[in-house]
């Protein structure tokens, strides 16, 4: 009824938000940031049996300036923490973070002087994936959940910058 009947074939109507979110989620480029054991499972996910290329994510960019997803795979030690923050700051908006594995989410098996208890003390995290190490299927489920989260993002206000501003104001 109305306008839709008169549109010729091959034309799609949508909102700008949906189009932008669809293009962002369909080709997330991860930063190659494997730290420890979870990195081997991340490599196995990108290999031939559990293929990450079907999500558009087979290119692991080496430079943070060209990546928009940081999968923190592995335990973050006290010496590595400033490097993680520096890499996160170097990525350009929009950016997302997945904490893969128990050590990145909460410190995992290692509750001691050397490991940061959860990478969310350093960078804001979107998705936490438990497991030690999580199976490739679990990582793919986490990525699919992230896709659903991206689909719901709004273009009206930049939610990420608001979130960062809120974190920084509580710290100071």
């Amino acid at each position, binding site marked *: 009824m109305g306008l839709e009947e008169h549109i010729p074939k091959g034309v799609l109507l949508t909102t700008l938000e949906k189009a932008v979110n669809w293009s962002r989620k369909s080709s997330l480029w991860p930063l190659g940031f494997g730290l420890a054991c979870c990195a081997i499972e991340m490599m196995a996910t990108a290999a031939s049996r559990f293929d990450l290329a079907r999500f558009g994510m087979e290119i692991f960019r080496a430079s943070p300036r060209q990546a928009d997803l940081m999968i923190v795979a592995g335990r973050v030690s*006290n*010496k590595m923490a400033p490097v993680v923050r520096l890499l996160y700051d170097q990525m350009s908006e929009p950016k997302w973070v997945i904490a893969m594995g128990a050590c990145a989410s909460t*410190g995992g098996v290692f*509750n*001691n*002087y*050397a490991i940061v*208890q959860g990478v969310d003390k350093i960078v804001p995290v979107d998705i936490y994936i438990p497991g030690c190490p999580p199976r490739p299927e679990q990582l793919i489920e986490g990525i699919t959940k992230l896709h659903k989260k991206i689909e719901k993002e709004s273009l009206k206000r930049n939610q990420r910058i608001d979130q960062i501003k809120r974190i920084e104001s509580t710290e100071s």
Partner: protein
Amino acid sequence: MENLISTKLKEKFPESTLEIAEFRGELTIVVKKEDMVPLCTFLRDDPDFSFNFLSDLCGVDYLGRKPRFDVVYHLYSLENNHRLRLKVKVEKGESVPSLTCVWNTANWHEREVFDLFGITFDGHPDLSRILLPEDWEGYPLRKDFPLTREEVMFSHNKNRPPKITG
């Protein structure tokens, strides 16, 4: 074979070898720390021993005993296929002569012992922290350094930020 090693060593260095022990087929000799370099050079070069491979160098903290620390050396000979363990007892604040002039592999091992226990080595080319950040204070593997930094959150304390010890 172990008896041959210990008897020959005791003949050559009678004042340096303090104790000899054997447990589960392994020979352990406690050595005076000042004589470490000549003793190890002899062990490396003598054809009966030819210990040309330093497997491992580590430290142990016996809190409550004087002297407090032990530095343990594991030697292996590729030609003769025998092993030996040497130990040096050292007190907190004292230093041990470095073995980098005998086996080059002692370089990184001694840096790690310094990093984690605080034992210094005389004659080491570059004694600095290797595993922990440069500005870290304290020596973690000592027994009086606490293990747990952060409190685990349960339902009784989940509404306040976690306490950090150490």
